[in-house]
């Protein structure tokens, strides 16, 4: 990508640069935080020159220069002027922006500059809790570093709708570096790729960094899932990776809903289906309302298809971050319909969603009694489970066992005496 602007620098460099193209990546400015703009000006002689303007120059000026020089050398740059306008970017962001600027100059090609890797976590269960997944725009690094502190079940590094078409390449590199260098704690690390074929390039960068799950947007056919799964398998083979990478197709159209079951069954790695209501209601040509009547069919259909395929059903997001009451109501209704979680666009939504998807204390207590009765019956070799004078059917027992397991995972089972009272 060529930006037709010339960097103003003092002295000789300016004359050299006047006729040359420069290539920028990242953002700077008064209102920008934790990012930088790297402007790469290739030239034919003069070695590497780095000009640094940084609000943290007093503290990390030397560190930024050393890192920048190192990155350029790793990429094989011999002669250039690199201008860095820094707003306090962290090292993994600095590396990503420099790499993106150089690759823009080189038609997208160029060696990766990989930041140090944080400790790799153990692979996550396919049926783990997925109550909340926090969207992090892939072009906006300032939200990455603290995302896990808000304790969502998952973070989504988003390369799709939150990233401008012109920024896909840079975001891809930034997200890759975040997967390597940012500690997301106990969160499941999800990446929302773009639709294929653009999404193939997203997979090339992300998969080697072992994300836990890939969200496939605008899925309408099983083939889309198969294509993504094949590509992931190919990259994993190439890098000799064995840990599973789960898939969550997002159904965002009438056709996608019609094919929900086949999509869920398209590949073994699919662990959940979710729905994108903005696109879905647009496809229907109806308004998205707070009550959600217009999507009731799609959502119940999705829940049914997911359960039939043995995967989780996950609901959409509520974009109005100021309306916590509306979010709570939506979440409670959603849980009652059979969904197991929702997306969030602001950390403030996380506790509200966790509350909405948690079983009530009365439900938990009842389930605990049933499970205890079941254990008791098993211990005595009885085939029939009874609680007081009531017979308990096997599906009721199964539901109680599932509920207790989930409640335990959520940390909402009261500690202490769990026996029958």
């Amino acid at each position, binding site marked *: 990508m060529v930006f037709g602007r010339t960097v103003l620098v003092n002295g000789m460099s300016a004359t050299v640069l006047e006729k040359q193209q420069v290539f920028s990546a990242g953002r700077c400015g008064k209102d920008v*935080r*934790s990012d930088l703009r790297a402007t790469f000006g290739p030239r034919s002689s003069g070695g590497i020159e780095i000009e640094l303007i940084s*609000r*943290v120059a*007093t*503290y*990390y*000026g*030397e*560190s930024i220069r050393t*890192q920048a020089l190192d990155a350029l050398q790793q990429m094989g740059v011999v002669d250039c002027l690199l201008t860095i306008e820094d*707003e*306090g*970017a*962290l*090292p993994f962001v600095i590396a990503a922006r420099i790499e993106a600027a150089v690759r823009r100059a080189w038609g997208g090609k160029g060696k990766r500059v990989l930041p140090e890797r944080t400790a790799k976590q153990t692979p996550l269960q396919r049926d783990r809790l997925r109550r909340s997944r926090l969207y992090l725009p892939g072009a906006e690094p300032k*939200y990455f*570093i*603290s995302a896990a*502190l*808000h304790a969502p079940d998952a973070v989504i590094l988003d390369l799709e709708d939150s990233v401008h078409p012109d920024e896909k390449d840079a975001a891809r590199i930034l997200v890759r570096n975040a997967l390597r260098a940012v500690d997301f704690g106990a969160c499941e690390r999800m990446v929302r790729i773009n639709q294929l074929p653009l999404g193939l390039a997203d997979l090339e960068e992300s998969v080697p960094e072992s994300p836990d799950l890939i969200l496939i947007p605008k899925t309408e056919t099983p083939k889309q899932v198969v294509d993504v799964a094949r590509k992931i398998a190919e990259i994993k083979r190439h890098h000799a990776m064995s840990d599973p990478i789960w898939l969550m197709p997002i159904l965002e159209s009438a056709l996608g809903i019609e094919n929900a079951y086949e999509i869920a069954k398209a590949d073994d790695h699919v662990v959940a289906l979710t729905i994108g209501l903005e696109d879905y209601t647009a496809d229907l040509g109806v308004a998205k309302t707070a009550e959600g009547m217009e999507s009731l069919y799609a959502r119940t259909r999705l829940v049914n298809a997911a359960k039939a395929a043995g995967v989780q059903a996950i609901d959409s997001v509520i974009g109005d971050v100021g309306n916590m009451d509306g979010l709570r109501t939506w979440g409670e209704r959603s849980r009652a319909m059979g969904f197991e979680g929702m997306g969030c666009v*602001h*950390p*403030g939504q996380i506790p509200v969603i966790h509350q909405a998807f948690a079983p009530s204390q009365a439900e938990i207590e009842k389930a605990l009694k049933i499970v205890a009765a079941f254990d008791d019956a098993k211990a005595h070799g009885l085939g029939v489970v009874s609680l007081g004078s009531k017979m308990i059917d096997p599906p009721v027992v199964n539901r109680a066992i599932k509920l207790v397991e989930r409640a335990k995972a959520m940390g909402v089972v009261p500690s202490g005496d769990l026996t029958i009272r």
Partner: protein
Amino acid sequence: MLTEIETELVKNAAGRLVPTLVNGSDQTPYLGVGQYHPAGRKAAPLIRSNKDYPEDGDKRVPDLETALRLCGVRDHMVISSHHHLRDGDAVAVQALETAARMGVKDLMWFPSASFPSQKTVIDLMESGAVHHIEGSMNGPLGDYCSRGKMRGMGVLRSHGGRWQAIQDGEVHIDIAVIAAPTADPFGNCTGSVGKSACGGLGFALADSMYADKVIVVTDNLVPFPCVPWQIQGNNVDYVVEVPSIGDPAKIVSGTTQITRSPDRLLIARYVAEFLRDAGIMRDGFSFQAGAGGIALAFVDYLRQMMKEAKVKARFVRGGSTKYLVELLNEGLTDYVLDGQTFDLDGVRSLATNSRHVSTSPFTSYNYHGKGNIASMIDAVVLGATEVDVNFNGNVVTHSDGRLLHGIGGWQNCLFAGCTILALPSFRDRIPVIVDEVTTLTGPGELIDVVVTERGIAINPRRQDLIDATKGSKLPIRPIQDIQKEVFAICGGKPQKPKLTDRPVAVVKWVDGTVLDTVWGLS
């Protein structure tokens, strides 16, 4: 190491190098908390007689220049002002500019705080009318001082320290200029009403009591009596009526906003939960919180928790905002004790609710008295620019050494039962928990808890708080652990800024001793 005025530097009890002479006055280096024992009698203004004042009580003069001339303004005088009008104030600069026009030189400006809109005082320092400032300096004024351009040394005092300095005779005010949102011709003033209403006028109280001459400037003159008066006309020499004392939009912002930053909201929630889990939030407790984004969010979280636990505070101190007013109106506190009023809800409440009470630095903060409110408060939530691993705090300088903030009531509040610093663990990649603070503003022995988005550190000196929060789900960790994590995120320890060995300002402790030095930027 000597400056142009041959100041000797000595190491004080905190291990900081401080000058022994500041602007011609001998100084006592900081001796430790509670180690300095004052002696002697308080300062007092001259004895006056009613025979020299109009019997009808009408002290009006046509303009500020006349008032200054009648006050005998001349070179080297100390002129004071208060900051209740904040960034909207038009009176302080006007008084200094008027004196400058009259040909007066080398004044010392002694504001209770300065604001960015008062940066024109730089021109007065350049022209020689103002010699130096003793008071908070932020923004352009802080920058000017940091770069060593001020002829005298800056002296930073807390709100309580300013009262102490006036009362103990360390600073003698020649002329106090008091901007008053409402006044009568006798000089009684209130800040509660009028088009430029700002709430209380407590910061001007010492000035009115101890200055040689007192000028009241108002844009809302009412016939005697102006009641209830916050400043007594019996201390006032002249009253000047002007069209406007300031810009009401900047006097109170109108809206004080809770932070929307997810990390800061998390910090605020941790603070509230800490007070709950430590058992500090209980019936009849008290707390203080300012008007910053985190502090406001903290009040909102605490309010919900107080309701859930059916707990009520006896009093809340602030900087009042609509959030404190809501507590009062919902019956969650018996009283709001207000040092300065930050928004219109606060101004209205102070004017109309007898349980919303205006306080002064004397009642709240002064350390050389027979006690104060600050030390009676159960918990206070404060900010800081830096804190070190020994819990020492800095509020006056940025990590690069530049003067950034005044001390305000910060030092005085450290005497609360539980002092909490609520801060992000890093700002723009700059770690906030450092090995040693750039400028010592508060001794670590008085700072009990540091709350960041990455964890809560309890001062090891407070075993009682550590015990009280055992079993809490909060992320309580050693301060060194949080620091280590942040260094890892930020790419290592930051470089140290290079500063000169030239003192440009000193930080006073609440007892008037010198706690630390601000060094000139290179």
